[in-house]
């Protein structure tokens, strides 16, 4: 084979490779949505699951997933943002900064089940809370934190240096410059990164099996007292999320319509993740336009 035909063959190979990845994605999405849309109904989205009979829904699971996401973000956004500010603004090239970065790499590459085991040890057993939303949120925070820190740091670093110089030249301190000048202009990037992280938190399951638990109490959606054990907003109750539900019905459920419930749950999960993805792109662009008035 001469060089020219080798080049042609290689080009064909590259096109086929790209086509294969697109085909895999199309097959996955098509399969999940096609089966899912037949399973999804209003009743399915709102009703509680059944334990042995057919016809259960995933209402509490959907609520739990969003509530857990909210709690996780409530913990990770302030800490992650502050740590990102430290790394971008104050940290020098010292030993300590090296340890922070090494820790972040370690946390990022930890298998989520190991974080789940840590959560079981600390947030479930040591605190005596048992399987609770709070334990789950703290475990997910450990997974999510390095991501938010990195997003914050990188976006802060992309802010043009002239903005900082101008602010400092006017007599503002570094902290004032950060909050009044740099963060507002890094805001679109941080929002985009946070929403993408939200998608990942929403789909996480392995870390939750032994922290938030695999069951939900019967929820009373008219009870908004956070201390009541049946209140949906009580953070110290067990909570099964949608992702965990998919795993559980497939591995140990007794209901006859496992297939139906799993199809519907998978489709809801995928739709929410797709929604986060689109929202992140759109919101990032929108806020950027608003702030820069272009």
């Amino acid at each position, binding site marked *: 084979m001469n060089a020219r035909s080798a*080049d042609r063959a290689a*080009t064909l190979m590259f096109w086929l490779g790209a086509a294969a990845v697109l085909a895999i994605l199309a097959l996955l999405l098509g399969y999940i949505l096609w089966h899912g849309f037949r399973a999804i109904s209003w009743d399915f989205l709102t009703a509680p699951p059944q334990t042995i009979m057919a016809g259960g829904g995933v209402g509490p699971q959907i609520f739990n997933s969003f509530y857990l996401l909210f709690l996780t973000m409530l913990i990770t956004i302030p800490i*992650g943002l502050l740590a990102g500010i*430290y790394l971008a603004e104050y940290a020098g090239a010292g030993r300590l900064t090296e340890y922070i970065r090494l*820790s972040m790499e370690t946390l990022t590459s930890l298998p989520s089940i190991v*974080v789940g085991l840590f959560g079981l040890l600390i947030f479930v057993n040591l605190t005596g809370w048992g399987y609770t939303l709070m334990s789950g949120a703290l475990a997910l925070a450990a997974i999510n934190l390095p991501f938010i820190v990195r997003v914050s740091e990188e976006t802060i670093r992309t802010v043009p240096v002239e903005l900082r110089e101008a602010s400092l030249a006017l007599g503002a301190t570094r902290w004032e410059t950060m909050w009044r000048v740099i963060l507002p202009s890094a805001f679109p990037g941080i929002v985009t990164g946070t929403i993408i992280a939200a998608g990942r938190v929403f789909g996480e399951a392995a870390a939750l099996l032994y922290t938030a638990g695999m069951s939900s109490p019967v929820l009373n959606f008219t009870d908004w007292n956070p201390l009541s054990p049946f209140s949906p907003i009580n953070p110290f109750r067990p909570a099964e999320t949608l992702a965990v539900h998919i795993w559980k019905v497939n591995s140990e459920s007794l209901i006859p319509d496992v297939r139906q419930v799993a199809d519907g749950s998978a489709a809801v999960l*995928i739709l929410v993740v797709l929604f986060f993805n689109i929202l992140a792109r759109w919101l990032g662009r929108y806020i950027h336009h608003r702030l820069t008035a272009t």
Partner: protein
Amino acid sequence: MSKNFPLAIENKEYSSSGPGSLGLTAKGIHIHKRYIEYFGRTVSFLAAALVIALTLAIIFFIGQKGLATFTVSGVNAWNFLFQTQWMPDRPMEQGGPLVGSLSFIIGSLLVSLMAVAVSGPLSVIVAVFMVEIAPGWGQRVLQPAIEILAGIPSVVYGYVGLSLLVPFIRNYMGGEGFSLLAGFIVLSIMILPTIISVSSDSLRALPSQWKEASLALGATRWQTISMVLVPAARSGIITGVVLGLARAFGEALAVQMVIGNTRQIPYSILDPLMTLTSAITMDMGNTIMGSLWNNALWSMGLLLLMMSFMFILIIKLVVRRGGMIR
């Protein structure tokens, strides 16, 4: 970077906008500002320090629990790592209890290495396609596609594997369907986005003169790609592959759903198997804290933790070497 700019508060000639403009003297504002600056620095430092504290806590507690098998239960570490007899609930009279985890370790290694063997080459092909063959198109169509693939939760991969791939293997290839084959196919798709994005970043970072020089010497595009660009980007590509391997090795639920979870070393790709993660997933809830069985599961967790350190170490070595070549 910020070191280049002298701080206003450190400047002795600092003065406020005018006498009594806010009822505060210049000195008052000065002290107030310094206090806030100090506060901000401390709070953000504490947040960053928390990342270290969390990591150390995870290492300490998983390590302590994981070592209990050897310190409290008195199991020989060699037997734990290199023996296949898994009888954690068998009493002494029947030859137990034995917690040889070799079949899980081999299962984890097999399934993740095979996933990387499939996913690695395909990912490099796609990364090169995105950067060199069809950059505009790659950016518009493939980039979002890869982001969506990365965003699909692992349980959904597991579920599609369970409901589509497993029956397909059962009907057309034989066996139960729950197999090494199903496991590594699911994993190879899951780790595609990781390897593609890291490799394409490193291809994009190459100086364009290298490509231009190669083409100017009369090399075809394929020759340029295979002999100049891919070798030049190899530290990034290896990093991507190791990250993919790490993700495959640590993935729990997607694998657990499709591999059949049978305690044996598989001899064919159609055989079922069990991995470290699936063993933990299946048994952790059913064993009593402090029992030998439970301790052995924690030791497997520790093993996963140590493997992820090893992967980080490999990446650090690769990146350092790649940096020297450049």
